[in-house]
């Protein structure tokens, strides 16, 4: 129901010099009225006609023809106060958001202008058609004391009609990270697709500790924020289900993340990919110039006939399950060629085999920490994604080429699984900050950029949605931001506003953008004909720097200490001496690392014996290239091994 009395704030004026059109009109506002400003929503009512508009420009003037006249009138004394004051009028220009009834489309009539209330806000932004069904609160439109919820349409935010969200603004003031967190919380609360669909978030943390404490409450809970949460019907809490992932450091013992405080490390899963995971992405991990048609053919052969198969080389059987096996396989192939003095092996030339061997075996060194040399593999829970869960992948500290691989493989897995419908959820939001670094408008083509472009162009049909942020929108690949149906702007830089992308905004709107305070945003969304200003509450989430203070990262642990602490986390009774003994008995440290990671992953009831079994069984195995194997290496532990678990 509409409130009976809307507050009248002005009256439409149309002059020959500045006529009303169907898309814009001017009005003057009552003297001394502070309720109207840039971004204010108003409605013009005449009989049954309602014209909704948003103020985009304001002018204040008097009948003074020239500054000179005022100067002369005051006899050059700025302190002089005239007994009679000139009239001062405030005229505003408003852009039309909507007209009811829609036909015929006519210039806005001269009629009273009223301030918007909740109902008017809802109609003006065409939210009446969707807010109950698919509304996602994005913030509150504020007008004096009035706070009206503003909703985005999930069908245009998360697909299938349109999708993606992009946010721009200067660092530290635009509240980009905070607003994305807030919108995700809002989506988790309000997205109501059919129950079995499910929605999850994959967050790439690319900057320090930015998104590493999403499951901890923030320190400041302010009353005004609480009120906003109530109005938006969003619980004022952090994320409930967050899982963290990070590659190892090069020691493959310590994780490459800042979330290493002993209380928190338990919730960080290593990201450690094996041979099988990587072979699909050879084009990403290998230099294009290296992979000619011949190399391609050999890689394809390895993928099809060698990996996860038992094949015979030089009269010996070999099963290749990981990089170590593969290196071994190459050695055997080369040996066979050398012994038989042939330059070709199954149509592959000796030089090609050497080259591919070299490039592939280099990968586990080049992507040390991310690519596993042995059978230990650890990954996102493909197939078991949970509804309303956040999967944070910390790539803040890995080098660009590893970032490229992480993004590309994860997104491609998401896409394949969403296509087949076996991810566990039907909608995934991928969050990427610093888009101008990862998808710059100029600069070289990377797989990462291609991946982001791909989500933005095809993702919405699959339920794969990109939420991205950057300081300078003008520096991001045009098609990525162009495909983003919802765009948000926080405090902006004046230089950025001067770039051509912002020409559609009036200068008053630009001025406002350049001075927005924290928590204020400008939103563009397909249902809104014009940008709308809203404010949102601070997310009740621990900010990265606070998290680091509360949970300082642990120092890197030496291997033996790491084994002891990690096993102890599984079972408090692990003795230090026992660990020392096992470590001392192992052939080399990589064997310990492998055994530790496998034990941690399997979480057996008796970790120390599991660990011992893992090490013992493999102790003494030589897997360095060139060594003479005298047995059939089956490095993956037998799944039916009675000693396991």
């Amino acid at each position: 129901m509409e409130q009976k009395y809307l507050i009248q704030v002005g009256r439409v004026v149309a002059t020959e010099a500045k006529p009303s059109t169907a898309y814009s009109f001017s009005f003057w506002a009552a003297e001394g009225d502070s309720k109207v400003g840039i971004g204010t929503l108003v409605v013009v009512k005449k009989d049954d006609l309602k014209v909704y508009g948003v103020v985009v420009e304001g002018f204040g003037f008097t009948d003074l023809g020239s500054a000179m006249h005022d100067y002369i009138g005051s006899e050059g004394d700025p302190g002089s106060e005239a007994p009679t004051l000139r009239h001062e009028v405030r005229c505003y220009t408003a852009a039309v958001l909507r007209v009811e009834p829609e036909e015929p489309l006519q210039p806005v009539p001269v009629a009273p202008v009223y301030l918007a209330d909740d109902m008017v806000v809802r109609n003006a932004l065409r939210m009446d058609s969707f807010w109950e069904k698919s509304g996602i609160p994005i913030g509150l439109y504020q007008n004096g004391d009035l706070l009206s919820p503003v909703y985005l349409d999930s069908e245009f935010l998360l697909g299938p009609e349109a999708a993606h969200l992009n946010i721009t603004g200067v660092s530290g003031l635009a509240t980009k990270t905070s607003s994305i967190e807030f919108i995700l919380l809002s989506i988790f609360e309000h997205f109501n697709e059919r129950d079995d669909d499910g929605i999850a978030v994959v967050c790439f943390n690319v900057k320090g500790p930015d998104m590493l404490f999403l499951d901890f409450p923030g320190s400041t809970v302010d009353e005004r924020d609480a009120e906003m949460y109530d109005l938006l019907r969003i619980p004022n809490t952090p994320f409930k289900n967050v899982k963290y992932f990070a590659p190892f450091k090069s020691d493959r013992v310590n994780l490459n993340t800042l979330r290493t405080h002993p209380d928190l490390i338990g919730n960080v899963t290593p990201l450690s990919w094996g041979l099988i995971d990587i072979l699909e992405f050879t084009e990403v991990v290998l230099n294009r110039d290296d992979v000619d048609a011949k190399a391609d053919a050999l890689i394809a052969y390895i993928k099809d006939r060698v990996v996860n198969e038992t094949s015979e080389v030089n009269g010996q059987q070999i099963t290749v399950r990981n990089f170590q096996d593969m290196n071994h396989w190459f050695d055997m192939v080369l040996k066979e060629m050398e012994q038989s003095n042939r330059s070709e092996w199954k149509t592959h030339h000796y030089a090609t085999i050497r080259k591919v061997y070299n490039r592939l075996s280099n990968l586990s060194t080049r992507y040390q920490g991310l690519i596993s040399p042995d059978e230990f593999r650890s990954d996102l829970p493909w197939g078991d994604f949970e509804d309303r869960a956040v999967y944070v992948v910390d790539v803040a500290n890995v080098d660009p080429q590893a970032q490229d691989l992480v993004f590309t493989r994860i997104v491609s897995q998401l896409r394949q699984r969403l296509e087949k419908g076996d991810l566990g959820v039907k909608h995934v939001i991928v969050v990427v900050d610093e888009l101008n670094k990862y998808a710059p408008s100029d600069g070289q083509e990377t797989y990462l950029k291609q991946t982001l472009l791909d989500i933005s162009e095809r993702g919405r049909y699959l339920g794969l949605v990109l939420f991205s942020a950057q300081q300078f929108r003008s520096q991001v690949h045009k098609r990525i931001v162009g495909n983003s149906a919802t765009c948000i702007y926080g405090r902006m830089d004046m230089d950025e506003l001067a770039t051509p992308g912002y020409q559609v905004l009036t200068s008053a709107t630009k001025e406002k953008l350049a001075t927005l305070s924290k928590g204020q945003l400008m939103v563009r969304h397909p249902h809104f004909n014009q940008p709308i200003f809203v404010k949102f509450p601070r997310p009740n989430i621990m900010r990265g720097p606070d998290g680091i203070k509360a949970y300082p990262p642990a120092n890197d642990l030496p291997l033996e200490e790491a084994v002891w602490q990690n096993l102890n986390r599984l079972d408090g009774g692990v003795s230090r001496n026992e660990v020392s003994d096992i470590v001392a008995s192992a052939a080399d440290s990589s064997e310990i690392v492998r055994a530790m990671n496998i034990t941690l992953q399997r979480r057996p009831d008796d970790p120390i014996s599991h660990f011992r079994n893992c090490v013992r069984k493999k102790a003494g195995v030589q897997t360095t290239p060139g060594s003479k194997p005298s047995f059939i290496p089956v490095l993956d532990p037998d799944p039916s091994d009675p000693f396991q678990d």
Partner: protein
Amino acid sequence: MLVERAKNKISDVRADIEREITSRWLSDFQSRNEWLLVDGSLSGDYHKYDSPNIVGVIKSHQTQYFLWEDQQKILNLKARERSGIFIPKGRNRPDVYSWYLRLRPNDGRDVYFGLVRVEAAKCRRTLDMADEISRWLLAERSPLSMPDARWDRLIYPIHDCELYLKSTAPSHTSLDSLMTGLIA
């Protein structure tokens, strides 16, 4: 011819209205220590009051009240100077006191620049208050009534009032269409 007569008629009607409003104002507000500023000569029944709170400001100087020598003194008034008080003759109405006042310096301008003639009731109080009333008017020089051509003499409150009246008057376009309607 016809236009001339129409103009005369309009100005007669306006004078009548002014007279009536002045009289009404005096009867309603006289006691409240408020003053009425009249654009032009005094009219209405001001003479019926002992000391009516009414001042007229005349911007045009068609009538010359003094002979050459005295007139020279008046035309040579400097800014913020006023003439002595006199009783203008030749009008068919009750006597008033009057004086000339130079609102703005006219150096390098014509002799009438910034010159107004003030009228007030013919009473003892006017003689006492002539300086004070002159100061009131001087204070109203700011803001300037630009872009009105008579800004040197047109004080802003009068300009403001004219602006208001103009905004409520029908435009030429609507008058024209009314007239055409009448003739047809």
